[in-house]
């Protein structure tokens, strides 16, 4: 490949372009027999991704979800050029991640929630200046991004604290701030809210939304917290056993699961509601599930109005976590083997 191509940083419209991408891994399988482990180590093959097609346009905020082992981290590693695909084509910001890793890394930012890029035995600020030197960030960009990170992520209180002494939330904020120093156009976040408390999570989500909205940063984020993802992203891509099982808006996901609803009736005895399934009772509170496609809300409410001793009624959508759990269960049952 000519040298010029390796430094190609042409403007791009498509952040992610994966065409028929497959990736397979070998896993060691050992048993209890020490001698057998030594002489005949066994392996099994795992299909991490199977003929995946995925396109993400500039400016999109995409949530990437799926059960454990679905292939989320593998996708991230492929997009960053850490590993190569067995077959298919991968392009990140119009570049071949494996062959054009260096120019790609100047354009994107990567953060794995369970790993830190900070220097453990140094104050937080040292990691930022290190980033400036290694990424060759110009002074103006650095100062602008630094000010932005300090303000939005509230870093200034612990900039001089040693990284090893930070709390998890502080460390994640510092990591996110550092990742943004070179003003990446596309950021990939693997479980950025992992282990964060409610306040820290809120701050992180708000900041990501701000980056996407105000700076036009393309974001691809994974998380197991579906409430977070549906709040953040305009599009959800769900993986199951290495394949894309869903790709659409958060609302579509809910509809695909049948848009299940809940109704809670507060009354003395457990009532019988036609077309509804009792989920559980707590004292006088009785919660039912129903499908609005089968039982209309007006019919349901008139049924409830006829019940004796009703003190209160609550209608709500089923929590997204429950919907997704049901989907995961279905996918697992459908998956071969």
């Amino acid at each position, binding site marked *: 490949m000519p040298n010029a191509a390796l430094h190609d940083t042409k403007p791009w419209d498509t952040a992610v372009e994966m065409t028929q991408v497959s990736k397979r891994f070998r896993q060691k399988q050992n048993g209890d027999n020490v001698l057998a482990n030594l002489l005949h180590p066994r392996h099994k093959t795992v299909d991490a991704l199977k003929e995946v097609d995925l396109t993400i346009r500039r400016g999109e905020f995409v949530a990437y979800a799926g059960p454990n082992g679905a292939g989320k981290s593998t996708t991230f590693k492929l997009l960053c050029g850490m590993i190569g695909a067995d077959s298919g084509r991968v392009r990140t910001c119009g570049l071949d991640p494996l062959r054009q890793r260096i120019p790609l890394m100047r354009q994107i930012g990567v953060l794995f929630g369970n790993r830190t890029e*900070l220097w453990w035995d140094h104050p937080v600020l040292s990691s930022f200046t290190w980033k400036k030197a290694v*990424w060759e960030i110009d002074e103006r960009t650095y100062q602008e991004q630094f000010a932005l990170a300090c303000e939005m992520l509230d870093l200034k209180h612990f900039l001089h604290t040693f990284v090893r002494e930070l709390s998890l939330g502080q460390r994640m904020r510092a990591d996110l701030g550092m990742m943004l120093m070179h003003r990446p156009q596309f950021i990939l976040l693997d479980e950025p809210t992992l282990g964060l408390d409610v306040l820290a999570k809120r701050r992180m989500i708000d900041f990501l939304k701000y980056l996407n909205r105000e700076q036009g940063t393309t974001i691809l984020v994974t998380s197991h917290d579906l409430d977070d993802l549906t709040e953040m992203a305009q599009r959800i891509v769900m993986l199951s056993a290495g394949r894309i099982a869903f790709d659409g808006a958060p609302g579509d996901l809910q509809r695909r699961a049948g848009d299940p609803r809940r109704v809670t009736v507060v009354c003395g005895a457990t009532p019988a509601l036609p077309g509804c399934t009792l989920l559980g009772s707590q004292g006088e509170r009785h919660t039912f599930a129903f499908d609005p496609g089968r039982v209309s809300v007006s019919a349901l409410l008139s049924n409830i109005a006829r019940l004796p001793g009703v003190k209160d009624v609550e209608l709500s959508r089923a929590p997204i976590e429950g919907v997704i759990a049901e989907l995961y269960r279905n996918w697992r049952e459908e998956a071969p083997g």
Partner: protein
Amino acid sequence: MAGKVKRLFSLWAHYAKMDAQWFAQDTGMFLLVVFSETIANFAAVTGLFLLAVRFGGVGDMSVDEMLFMLGFYTLSTGLVNMMDGGNALNISRRVGRGQLDHCLIQPLPLWMQLATEGFLPVSGSAGALCGLGFLLFAAARLRLAVSPLWVLGTVLFVLCSFAIQVGMRYIVSLSAFFHPAGSEEISAVMGGFLSSLGYYPLSGLPGWARAALNTVLPAGCLSWLPTLILLGKAPSPTLSFFYPLFAVLIFGAGVTTFQKGMKLYAKRGSSRYKAMGHRS
């Protein structure tokens, strides 16, 4: 090329600054590091030196020649330690612990990262400084005719010894790409092997053992062989040519092996991740 050299120096300067900041973070730590590094470097070679004193030398080397060799050894292994911050040279640890991923997200060629990231010119310089001290002291006692050419040769040979140690660590680290957990420590084992045997005189050994220890497991190339050349005791003058050539070969083999390993890494990745030793 000039741009790459400039970049290398600017990164070294940055890492030197970071190391100085780390080293000077508090007085107690500063003193403890100086104390422990000095003791560790003295203790490593003291045993053999005392043995030489007791028996008036070891093999065909006098006490002062032994001291010269120990100085050379401490200087070259000290240089390795000075460049090995964060396991940049103990590369099987980075491979085995899945920490190469951290390298791959930097907009720098891997070789440049590994050549600069471990640079500890302040906190890691004790070995090199002690070695230089031993070397100069022994040279003075041996009344060596020190010429600019001899100094140049010494510098070159120290670099060759460094290159052999690094090359060997990288060669064996190929197995960490295949067996990340089992081979995580393989470069440290190789480094430990070379450095534990690298300061013994080999003159009295059988020919086959000498040959093995100067080729396949080149512990003799760390200090014994270059010392013989520098002291004018080498069996053949051509060794002054072959020694640097051998160093280039081993280093080149290390680089090639690592590149092959990286191709495998791109195929297999690393399912294992341990934060231990990363940027600390």
